[in-house]
């Protein structure tokens, strides 16, 4: 059997060393417009280590077959690899059981799934769904669709000017009509780490379930769904060094059991007649059709990769990098950092007086520095902060202080052009 295996957990992890980490990511070793690539758009998508690329190639070269139809050797191997990845994802988020891990296309699909199944079953006319002011559009629109359909009301926990949730307001927004709370673990636009554990506690005290959107948290923070006690948790593989088009929905078993299926089709059934269909057991009830098998295997390899790193060293490195970037960029003339929450990770959003973020992005690109400019799929947040758009440098474990120096040098170039 040649499929990706979990990294040996007993092996002692080497201390975190960013130079060595960078060698694991082949894409980083290239020039853009004659300058070394400085990739600071990690909140949009992360780069992939060799281990993930090899796992996907290895699957297609040796084991490719459809799963859960194990009449031949390849199908048995593919099924084993797929299900073993589920187990690794379960450990990654510290869920209690494999059947609480549903493979989906990503966080967007996961939230839509919950809105369209749990939401449709539990939210009615006059009810309320509670989100926050710093959500990504993917944690706004699915709930808007649900509320529109049901005559329910979407309510929003406000933020302060730093980008922290106003928790005092949370208490009064949790009403007897609130049916579900959906909140980002980490803001993609500002990097704010939300106090999700406290939010879950407050909601649970009133019997309200909580979905945590972990898309931006998964590549940076340890995740423990049992410690958070959240009802649902979502993540996207491509933001955590895995492939695009694959992610997970974690759901507490009793919720998933009670929810109707999301999509009908093959694999999600136990038996079908034209009169009646018996649905498959968890998690297959929610995995209709042939899934993104290679994606799942790639995501499993990404989890192995992350788990094989010295977590403390990695987090210290990322923390140092964000502090360094905040000082360097925040110290430039005409620059204002947007989002200065007390607890932050990996995101540096900023505006420059007299220069639109898109012009910043274009000039940095020619310096080899990739950032994002725009509203970051969080238009209501931009409006709240009184900006049309921001420039956003977002960090990953493979970034270095030299990357930040290149960013700062590029920004000084922007200041020269736009004197």
């Amino acid at each position, binding site marked *: 059997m040649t499929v990706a295996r979990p990294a040996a957990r007993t092996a002692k992890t080497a201390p975190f060393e960013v130079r060595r980490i960078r060698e694991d990511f082949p894409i980083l070793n290239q020039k853009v417009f004659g300058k070394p690539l400085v990739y600071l758009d990690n909140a949009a998508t992360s780069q992939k280590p060799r281990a993930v690329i090899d796992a996907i190639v290895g699957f297609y070269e040796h084991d490719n077959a459809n799963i859960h139809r194990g009449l031949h050797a390849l199908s048995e191997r593919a099924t084993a690899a797929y299900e073993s990845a589920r187990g690794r994802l379960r450990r990654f988020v510290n869920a209690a059981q494999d059947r609480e891990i549903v493979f989906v296309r990503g966080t967007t699909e996961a939230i839509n799934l919950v809105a369209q199944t749990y939401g449709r079953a539990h939210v009615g006319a006059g009810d309320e769904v509670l989100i926050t002011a710093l959500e990504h559009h993917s944690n706004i629109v699915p709930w808007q669709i649900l509320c529109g359909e049901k005559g329910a009301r979407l309510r929003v926990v406000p933020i302060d000017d730093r980008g922290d949730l106003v928790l005092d307001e949370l208490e009064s927004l949790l009403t007897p009509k609130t049916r579900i709370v959906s909140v980002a673990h980490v803001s993609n636009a500002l990097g704010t780490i939300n106090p999700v554990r406290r939010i879950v506690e407050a909601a649970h005290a009133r019997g309200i379930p909580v979905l945590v959107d972990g898309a931006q948290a998964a590549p940076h923070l340890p995740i423990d769904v049992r410690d958070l006690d959240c009802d649902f948790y979502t993540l996207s593989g491509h933001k955590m060094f895995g492939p695009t088009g694959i992610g997970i929905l974690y759901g507490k078993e009793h919720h998933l059991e009670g929810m109707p299926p999301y999509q009908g089709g093959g694999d999600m059934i136990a038996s079908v007649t034209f009169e009646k269909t018996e649905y498959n057991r968890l998690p297959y009830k929610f995995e209709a059709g042939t899934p993104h098998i290679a994606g799942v295997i790639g995501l499993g390899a990404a989890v192995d990769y992350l788990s094989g790193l010295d977590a403390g060293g990695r987090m210290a490195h990322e923390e140092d990098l964000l502090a360094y970037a905040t000082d360097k960029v925040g110290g430039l003339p005409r620059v204002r950092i947007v989002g200065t929450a007390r607890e932050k990770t990996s995101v540096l959003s900023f505006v420059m007086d007299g220069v639109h*973020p898109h*012009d910043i992005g274009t000039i940095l690109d020619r310096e080899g520095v990739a950032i994002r400019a725009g509203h970051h799929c969080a238009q209501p947040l931009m409006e709240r902060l009184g900006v049309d758009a921001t420039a956003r440098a977002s960090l990953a474990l493979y970034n270095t202080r030299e990357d930040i120096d290149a960013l700062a040098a590029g920004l000084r170039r922007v200041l*020269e052009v736009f004197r």
Partner: protein
Amino acid sequence: MSTELGDLYQEVILDHNRRPRNFGDLPAAARRAEGHNPLCGDRVTVSVVLEGDILKDVRFQGSGCAISKASASMMTESLKGRSRTEAEDLFQAFHRLLTEDGASADPNVLGKLVVFSGVREFPVRVKCATLAWHTLRAALENARDIATTE
């Protein structure tokens, strides 16, 4: 600065970005349309007073990057006093300048707009440079829908 960047951010463009001309609204009688670039959230409103077939006055309002603001500003300057047909022809020539390799950058046709020739090296910025023009077209057609670059 690389040559391409220098060609993109020419002094004339930076000047119009800093001090946009014809920035503002026109009387209620004017034709008006709103333009939107969903990619970056840029918004522009173009209003135009027609006298017969002639664009008597053109103004714009909104926010956006240097390229979109300068393009809107210079568009208003280029169009005042022109006929609708001339305006459309100028847009066509301008669009070719931005998108076609070896397109004519004849100042006799394009006037000051030739400074936008550098945009051709930055394909993602073509939409910035054409947003105001698409919006003008919508205003002239009295289209109710919001003009968009998508």
